């Protein structure tokens, strides 16, 4: 089944409320995906620095691990931890070094995201509990996407939860099922795209990353996916400044959107939107099949 919520804020005065609203929207989708939950939040960037989010299994001393990573990277690296995740603020040229260091010294850790602004928090458990453990409600940001998971294609693990990030500041959540993910995964890996799990949705994320790496815009990459992905899907995709929605040509999976002067919101069910300000006067519609919707901050 799975549930998706997404919020793209247009009015900067609403940015401090992003986490609170997104957590509330997600809360009403718990029954659609009680296995696990995840949140991608586009937060502040630090000029001249990048961000890397990684997770480690519960029981790992994440602060100690993040501290060792910071020591290894050296001057200027800062770390902050939340529940099972750590966010490392580091020089852009150190992102690859950090990934290599984690692979060598902490193979149990997984890189969730890298980029200027994106932070991803995801964990196994009831979505409300996951949101609370990471204190999503207190996070400010410009846009965010969340997912509640009812697993179909792969195991219920932290790494199998959504959102998936396969490129800098890119993330994707998916409701549906993709049939040709095995063959696509092989092709994408051969093309040098990093894919960490056996999950079908990560392949969709990786597909978009590859298309954008090869010069397509997000809109073009999503249009291409209609030809190349076999299955049914509703995608919500985030980039550093953008927010996009696509449904398959049959529009199997539910989707409803709302827009006001202050925000654009997406949810699997309307009840998830009812907590938003001025929802009674918002323009509410269901996205058309095989149609790319895209919003971007200037």
């Amino acid at each position, binding site marked *: 089944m799975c549930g998706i919520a997404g919020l793209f804020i247009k009015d900067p005065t609403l940015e401090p409320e992003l986490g609170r609203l997104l957590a509330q929207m997600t809360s009403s989708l718990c029954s659609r995906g009680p296995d696990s939950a995840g949140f991608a939040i586009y937060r502040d960037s630090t000029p001249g620095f990048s961000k890397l989010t990684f997770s480690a299994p519960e029981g790992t001393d994440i602060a100690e691990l993040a501290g060792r990573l910071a020591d290894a990277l050296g001057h200027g690296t800062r770390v902050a931890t939340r529940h099972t995740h750590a966010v490392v603020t580091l020089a852009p040229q150190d992102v690859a070094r950090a990934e290599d260091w984690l692979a060598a010294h902490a193979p149990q850790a997984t890189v969730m995201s890298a980029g200027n602004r994106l932070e991803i928090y995801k964990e196994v458990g009831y979505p409300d509990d996951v949101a609370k453990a990471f204190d999503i409600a207190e996070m400010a940001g410009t846009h965010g996407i969340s997912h509640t998971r009812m697993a179909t294609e792969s195991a219920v693990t932290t790494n199998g939860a959504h959102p998936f990030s396969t490129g800098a500041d890119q993330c994707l959540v998916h409701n549906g099922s993709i049939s040709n993910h095995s063959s696509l995964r092989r092709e994408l890996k051969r093309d040098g795209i990093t894919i960490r799990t056996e999950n079908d949705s990560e392949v969709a994320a990786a597909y978009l990353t590859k298309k954008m790496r090869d010069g397509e815009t997000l809109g073009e990459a999503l249009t291409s996916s209609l030809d190349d992905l076999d299955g049914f899907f509703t995608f919500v995709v985030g980039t550093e400044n953008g927010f996009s929605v696509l449904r398959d040509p049959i*529009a199997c999976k*539910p989707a409803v959107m709302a827009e006001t002067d202050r925000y654009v919101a997406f949810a699997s069910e*309307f009840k998830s939107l*009812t907590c938003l300000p001025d929802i009674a006067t918002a323009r509410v*519609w*269901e996205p*058309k*099949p095989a149609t790319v919707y895209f919003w971007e901050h200037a």
Partner: protein
Amino acid sequence: MPVVDLAKTSLRELNAALQKLGADTNETSWTVLNPSGEHAVAAGVDAPVSITIDGPVGYFCGGMNKHATIVVDGSAGQGVGENMMSGLIHVKGDASQSAGATGRGGLLIVDGNASARCGISMKGIDIVVKGSIGHLSAFMGQSGRMVVFGEAGEALGDSLYEARLYVRGPVAGLGADCIEKAMREEHRAELYRLLEASGEAGTVDVGEFRRYGSARKLYNFNIDNVDAY
């Protein structure tokens, strides 16, 4: 005049109470508060009562309805009035996909838009949508009437049987075996009665609607049509 607040009473209790009502009940006017998008609100009612739901509902609201008048003062999720047998369901907001799916009788009114697959496999229900409808609406519609004040999406009436479709606005595309048909006097009269039943007699002009129906070429398997399957 029972008032049930779903913030305090469980949905299961509400539906059990509604489903217990018989034809001779004296509790004929119900109000449901705080539906908050719950699924299956007032599903399976079989009594001539009126139920007003104050807010948005989730999936399958009023499903299988018999005799009851259900008013949703808000929007409705997937499958509102699915397989309804008789009675009236009036959604004052928008309806999500598969509104009135497989409905066998009664009238479903949507004041706003209905999305994809509205009236899919309809079997006798009447559906009046005052806004627009999404793609694949009236797919395999067997009988009943659908009236749309606005536009229809792609593949309207795909594999249609005998459901009759009246659309005022543009149609993005007709599905297999669905064709436009002439509006004769009997159709104008039929449409007027449906507008009357939905409180819109005189507010929209019957002459602005076009009629769509089955070309009756795909009813039975015919080897000459194999490319169309």
